[in-house]
């Protein structure tokens, strides 16, 4: 059965053009079930367009896509039955209170019994910490409260997939943290697919990431894999003393692919790229210490942060283009 597939969202060369502008170009995306999938990209990369295609709010120019194995064009209503969506700027019926908005939204999915619908809405208000403001009109809500209410509205049907478009981008640090906390709480219930350009948020809550740039998917995978960077495993070795011969010696080792040196405050810092991680773990430090004239002052595996990886990928993609 398709519902048991490992991927909730699958797209096949999904493309969207607006006259001469190619907003999305042949995107092949796989979103694993029960993941928090961070969808990254600079402004204008095509993130919102992709979400709208998935929701049936726009139609692809070419290519196809499925959610839960259902076609995003022909079976859109059945898909929306099982998803929750939060737009970049969430909208509500402004004249209604938070609770009334929740009941209204719930009625797209359920017809009763009223007491149970109300209980579900109360539970959602509790989830996003708005129980004390349940009966206040939305007009007086702050940006963060509106965003949290938007998540409650998106979650009211217990969706199998939650699609959030920039859920925290317009919020102050406290509001952002509150939204990320809610997302983390939802992790065990649903798959969360969200777009953002705030890399710090992604690193905090996501387990899988895709990077979209200028309408193309340029990288994707588990976040640990992405954080390894595009250069493979790299060790950073800082030594004091004359290290001229070190490069020649390292270059002879078959599991070392590249060794580059830079001077920093009287220390030679070597960036050593390796092809065999296990051997490197065991042997690299020994190889360096084999020269008694050298003193090792630092030795660690290079860790990328997401921002560094993102900038490398996006800039590299830009130069290629």
């Amino acid at each position: 059965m398709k519902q048991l597939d490992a991927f909730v969202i699958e797209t096949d060369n999904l493309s969207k053009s607006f006259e001469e502008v190619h907003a999305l170009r042949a995107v092949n995306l796989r979103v694993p079930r029960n993941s928090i999938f961070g969808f990254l990209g600079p402004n204008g990369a095509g993130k919102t367009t992709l979400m709208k295609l998935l929701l049936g709010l726009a139609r692809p120019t070419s290519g196809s896509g499925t959610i839960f194995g259902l076609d995003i064009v022909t079976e859109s209503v059945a898909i929306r039955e099982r998803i929750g969506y939060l737009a970049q700027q969430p909208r509500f019926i402004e004249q209604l209170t938070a609770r009334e908005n929740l009941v209204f939204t719930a009625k797209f999915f359920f017809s009763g019994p009223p007491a149970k619908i109300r209980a579900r809405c109360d539970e959602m208000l509790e989830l996003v910490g708005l129980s004390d403001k349940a009966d206040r009109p939305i007009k007086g809500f702050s940006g963060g409260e509106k965003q949290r209410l938007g998540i409650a509205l998106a979650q009211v049907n217990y969706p199998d997939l939650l699609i959030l478009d920039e859920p925290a981008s317009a919020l102050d640090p406290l509001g952002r943290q509150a939204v990320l906390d809610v997302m983390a709480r939802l992790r065990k219930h649903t798959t969360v697919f969200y777009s953002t350009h705030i890399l710090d948020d992604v690193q905090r809550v996501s387990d899988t990431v895709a990077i979209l740039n200028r309408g193309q998917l340029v990288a994707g995978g588990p976040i640990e894999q992405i954080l390894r960077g595009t250069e493979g495993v790299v060790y950073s070795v800082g030594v004091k003393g004359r290290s001229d011969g070190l490069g020649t010696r390292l270059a002879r080792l078959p599991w070392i692919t590249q060794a580059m040196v830079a001077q920093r405050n009287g220390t030679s810092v070597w960036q050593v790229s390796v092809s065999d991680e296990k051997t490197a773990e065991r042997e690299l430090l020994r190889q360096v210490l084999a020269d008694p004239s050298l003193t090792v002052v630092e030795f660690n595996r290079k860790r990328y942060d997401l921002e560094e990886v993102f900038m490398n990928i996006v800039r590299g993609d830009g130069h290629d283009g």
Partner: protein
Amino acid sequence: MTANAELHKARDGQGLRGFSNLFGKESRAWWGTHRWWVNGLLWTGVLCGLTAIMLFLPNEEVFAASAAEVALAGGETAYTLWIGLNIFFEFGVSLLAIGTVVLSQDLIIGERHSGVAEWLLSKPVRRHAYIWAKVTANALPVLLLLVGLPSIVTYGIASLRLGMPFPVRPFLSGVGIMALNTWFYLSLTLMLGTLFNSRGPILGVALASILGGGLLGGFIEPLFWTTPWMLPKVAWLTATGQTISAEMRLSALVATTVWSAAFILVALMQFEKTEY
């Protein structure tokens, strides 16, 4: 925690998924706010007030009428009723059309601009259901409050002036024509809301039809047979039992009905294609 299995699934058929909830929302915008009584009071006050002035206060037009005209009407009271009901039907049909356009011009583009339409359509909602909810939930209060309520009061005023119940059948026929004209402008405005992105063209096209249609029909007579532009006069003549070409009346009524249906059809098709 309430599991989904404990809740009953929404009951709308797949073809109109989301209709009942959207209908409820649109209806609340009328009946759940002050909008219904403000409009009921406004249109009844304006139309019935003007009609009452013509019926009960000394009227220049009646004084100036020739004996033949008065005799044709069947006496001074009958002639006064012609003049009074002319205000209600001929002027009223056009005034209500303007009111309908003003009240409904924002129904679709307002929600498209604000992002509410996008939000609603991200739920399990058929786009046809969205349009049908707009049409039905707004037609009901517009017809009841703008046409029905003033008509009931005007019937009472006319009967009072006549000293006996005003003939029901012609009066109801006139009200029916008034309702059809109002329905035409509601469907036209909703259709324009799916075709254009700003209020300017919606108001421009609809008001040009109301205010300029009669003038244009004067130059190109067949237009009177194929548009609602003759309906204000047809409504008055019918309500007061005056002679009117049956072919022209039928043609204008059928044409208006067909146009209205076509507008709804175009609105459904256009909204189905709209991207967000």
